[in-house]
């Protein structure tokens, strides 16, 4: 057991830190979605020019081939510097790695560079109104038509759809096959008449997500990733990449929110309040447990090659902890934390999505029960 950075890891951290000190743009502007996205696009361009954008990608594809520990260090330093994630985060974390793992040479040639530079933004068309947790029941259909496919259906919770050039789309291509086997993974061009993007307004008032309607939208044969009918396996790879390496950034975000709350408690002279002390200690313990849990998971992943189902556990820990933290802040700030548009009222409401987005807490518990504990399946 050794929790110190090796010489090369420490050198890497110093390099990242020095670069961020010179180049981090600080927090993105809040309140104006368009301005925020433009800011993050410019930030990605800067990261790309310095070679940081495709940190985890192999060097042959324009990446840095960083280890998981290095990715974790980078994300932690990035969060510490206050800079946002790059604009094309879905392309960088999911789209690119899927093309690298399952794509043809032509697809790698065509798609990878513009993902890195942020010139082409990617979104993910997985969830549907009637297929949330039970994703494999999806109904969006792709029908063969000469030289390609026509897609009809509806996706929901599609982040960045209004900015995206391409959509990682799961559609049913064989309705006779068992539900996991009839799904194909497409790269669909969003800039065409058959695609209609409508923003979805959240309880926070903003619109991070969209509904996307497809009406005979066209996608050519060469835009299938993997084999027709093999989309479910390709999608599983995507979902595993979604979490690897992002744990450290999530912990860092919680740690800085904890520090802000600590300052509020000090300003209000509440450090002696026994209830607040107990709750703050619980938060501190949860945040540190997540930090060390993430390091244990990284160590295990480096040994075994693929992220394990234990990642589900840290996702639900994170949701719980962030919800508790924002509630405690709300309790302390009282009525002033409840004005619309305020930092903590926004966080209080936004945190409610944490136990739903990226796998509901209930589905994650199912995964842990079945795949880690080996309990029998309900179905």
């Amino acid at each position, binding site marked *: 057991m050794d929790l110190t950075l090796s010489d090369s890891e420490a050198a890497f951290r110093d390099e990242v830190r020095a670069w961020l000190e010179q180049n981090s743009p600080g927090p993105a502007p809040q309140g104006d979605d368009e301005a925020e996205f433009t800011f993050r696009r410019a930030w990605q361009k800067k990261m790309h020019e310095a070679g940081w954008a495709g940190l985890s990608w192999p060097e042959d594809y324009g990446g840095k081939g960083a280890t998981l520990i290095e990715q974790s260090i980078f994300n932690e330093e990035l969060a510490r510097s206050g800079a946002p994630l790059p604009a094309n985060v879905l392309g960088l974390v999911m789209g690119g790695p899927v093309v690298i793992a399952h794509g043809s040479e032509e697809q790698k040639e065509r798609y990878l560079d513009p993902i890195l530079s942020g010139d082409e933004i990617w979104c993910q068309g997985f969830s549907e109104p009637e297929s949330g947790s039970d994703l494999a029941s999806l109904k969006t259909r792709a029908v063969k038509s000469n030289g390609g496919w026509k897609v009809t259906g509806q996706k929901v919770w599609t982040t960045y759809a209004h900015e995206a050039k391409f959509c990682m789309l799961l559609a049913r291509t064989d309705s006779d096959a068992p539900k996991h086997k009839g799904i194909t993974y497409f790269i669909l061009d969003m800039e065409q008449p058959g695609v209609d993007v409508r923003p979805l307004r959240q309880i926070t008032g903003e619109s991070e997500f969209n509904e996307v309607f497809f009406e005979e939208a066209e996608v050519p044969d060469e835009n299938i990733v993997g084999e027709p009918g093999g989309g479910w396996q390709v999608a599983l790879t995507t979902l595993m990449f979604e979490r690897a390496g992002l744990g450290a950034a999530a912990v860092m975000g919680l740690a800085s929110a904890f520090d802000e709350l600590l300052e509020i408690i000090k300003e209000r002279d509440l450090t002696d309040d026994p209830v607040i002390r107990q709750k703050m200690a619980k938060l501190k313990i949860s945040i540190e447990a997540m930090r060390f849990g993430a390091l244990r998971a990284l160590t295990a992943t480096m040994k075994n090659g693929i992220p394990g189902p234990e990642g589900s556990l840290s996702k639900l820990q994170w949701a719980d902890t962030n919800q508790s933290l924002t509630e405690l802040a709300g309790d302390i700030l009282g009525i002033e934390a409840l004005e619309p548009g305020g930092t903590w009222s926004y966080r209080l409401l936004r945190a409610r999505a944490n136990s739903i987005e990226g796998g509901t807490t209930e589905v*994650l518990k199912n995964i842990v029960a079945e795949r880690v504990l080996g309990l029998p399946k309900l179905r």
Partner: protein
Amino acid sequence: MHFDLNDEQREIKDTARNLLAERSKPAKVREHAEARSHDAELWKGLCELGWAGIAIPEEHGGQGLGMVELATLCEELGYACAPVPFLSNALAGLAIEEWGSDEQRSRWLPGIASGEARGTVALDPDEPALVADPEGAAVIGIPVGGSPRLVEPGEAKIEPVELIDATRSFARVGADGGDEVPAGPAHRGMIALAAELTGVAQKALDMAVEYARDRQQFGRAIGAYQGVSHRCAEMLYDVEESRSLTYYAAWTADAEPESMPLAAHMAKARASEAAWAVTTNALQVFGGIGFTWENDLQFWLKRARVAGELLGTAGEHRDRVAELAGLGSSEPVPA
């Protein structure tokens, strides 16, 4: 960066798991708990293997290994709920090694390392102090008039106390004399207890999961129902948080002592809370049978409750965590 046991540490843990599975089966635990006795034969065997001296320096007859190695043994002994005076003796060794004079260390550590002249120490701040496994101990570390002393059984007044955890014996011990020792907070002891509690919780989880796979109601295994399976998933979350914090704390004791106080309080707070949550959730999974004397879960549940109180409750440790995390002391500053 490597947050896992190394090969040697893994081997210690696996060896301990296998040996205790063989030599400290639940039936054996029950036999000794019902008689309120130690398993003297098992203890002798563990001492012959050098367990008692694992973290004591080689110059005093120990193996000279660190807190991580000691924590792996505590975890496995908690997993087995073994009725041996290992923990009390280990805590005495840690205290005398950390705070004792050269003379005190030469005098007591060899016997603690071999297990032939055991030690035990106060587990609460009261006087007379609560100690575990007092009978047969050669040296007892307790506060006398507010200052820590090492006393010998002949000069101590030992009043046996029975607690619900019958796998361990307890007494209140007071004295007038004794040899002064400038002992400070028992951070290493808290880490050892956190490791034991992690093992206790892991065993209760394993028992509950096994039962949930086998027990049939309404035509299927109860583990298929989300009311049960989600409870088990939460138990895993408790066990793993407890383990991450405990091994981090053990590592700081060996490698980064300036981080140890906060780490030790976090580990003991989380492990105490987790072990009680997991053992009581396990009882709920078992249902009625878990509430009967014939079910073995009771020994782990009672161990969890008592060990959770030793060297401070979860709430007391959280208050220290709050202090060290930036909220400052809740105690008035002494004049």
